[in-house]
C-alpha cells in the first residue's frame, strides 16, 4: 500500500499546486490539506526568516513512519508530507501535509495528528533569524 504515500524533503519552494492537482480518486469523499508558513510575529519578536535543518535520512524515515501510523489509525486513501529544509522566508511554506479519505472525519483527525507528531518526533530543527539581527535555534522542552 506504500504507493499511496508521498514523502519528501525538499530544498526549494514547495510546489503546492502540483501536489494538490493530483487528487481524483473515486473512493475519496474528503481531501484535507495543511500548509505551515513562516510567520512574521511570535509574541513580541519579529522574524526575518527561518532556516530548517534535519538529520535527513532519519527525518525521511520518521515522516514515512508517521504516514504509515496515520494509515493504521485512520481510514485514509492517500497521504502527502513534504517538508522544506534550508531558508524559508516569511510568507512561504515550510511544510505541506495532506490526506484523503472516504469520510471527512478521518482526514481532519489524521491531519491534526500528523502535524502534532511531526513536531514531536521528527528530527528537524528551525533557527529563527530575528529582525534585530539575532538568531536562535528552537529547541522546545517537553513539559
Amino acid at each position: 500500500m506504500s504507493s499511496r504515500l508521498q514523502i519528501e524533503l525538499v530544498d526549494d519552494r514547495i510546489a503546492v499546486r502540483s501536489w494538490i492537482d493530483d487528487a481524483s480518486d473515486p473512493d475519496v469523499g474528503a481531501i484535507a490539506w495543511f500548509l505551515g508558513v513562516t510567520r512574521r510575529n511570535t509574541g513580541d519578536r519579529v522574524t526575518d526568516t527561518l532556516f530548517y535543518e534535519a538529520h535527513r535520512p532519519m527525518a525521511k524515515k520518521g515522516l514515512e513512519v508517521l504516514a504509515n501510523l496515520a494509515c493504521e489509525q485512520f481510514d485514509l486513501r492517500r497521504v502527502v508530507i513534504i517538508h522544506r529544509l534550508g531558508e524559508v522566508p516569511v510568507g512561504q511554506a515550510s511544510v505541506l501535509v495532506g490526506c484523503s479519505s472516504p469520510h471527512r472525519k478521518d482526514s481532519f483527525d489524521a491531519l491534526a495528528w500528523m502535524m502534532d507528531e511531526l513536531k514531536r518526533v521528527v528530527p528537524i530543527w528551525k533557527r529563527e533569524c530575528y529582525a534585530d539581527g539575532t538568531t536562535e535555534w528552537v529547541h522546545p522542552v517537553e513539559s
Partner: protein
Amino acid sequence: MSLNVLLFAAARDDIGSDYVEIDVPDNASAALVMSKLSELSPFMAELVPYCRLAIDERYADASASIQGAREVALIPPVSGG
C-alpha cells in the same frame, strides 16, 4: 574506543563541528554517551538532558548499547513543521 557522535542545530553550533569524537567503552550505553556529551561544555551540560540519542537512525533507550552501531547521533528537542 573512540566514537564519533553526529551533532545538529544548537549542539553543532556550540561545538563548532557536525560531529564530535568521544572516548567510551565498546559496549557503552546510550546514557553513558549522553553523560560524556554533557561534559563537553557548559552549554552541552544544559542541552543534553533534553536530547535523545539515535543509534543507527532510531531513537534509543537510555539502556541501549552502542556496540556495533554504524552511526550515533545526538538529537536535540525538535522543532520541525
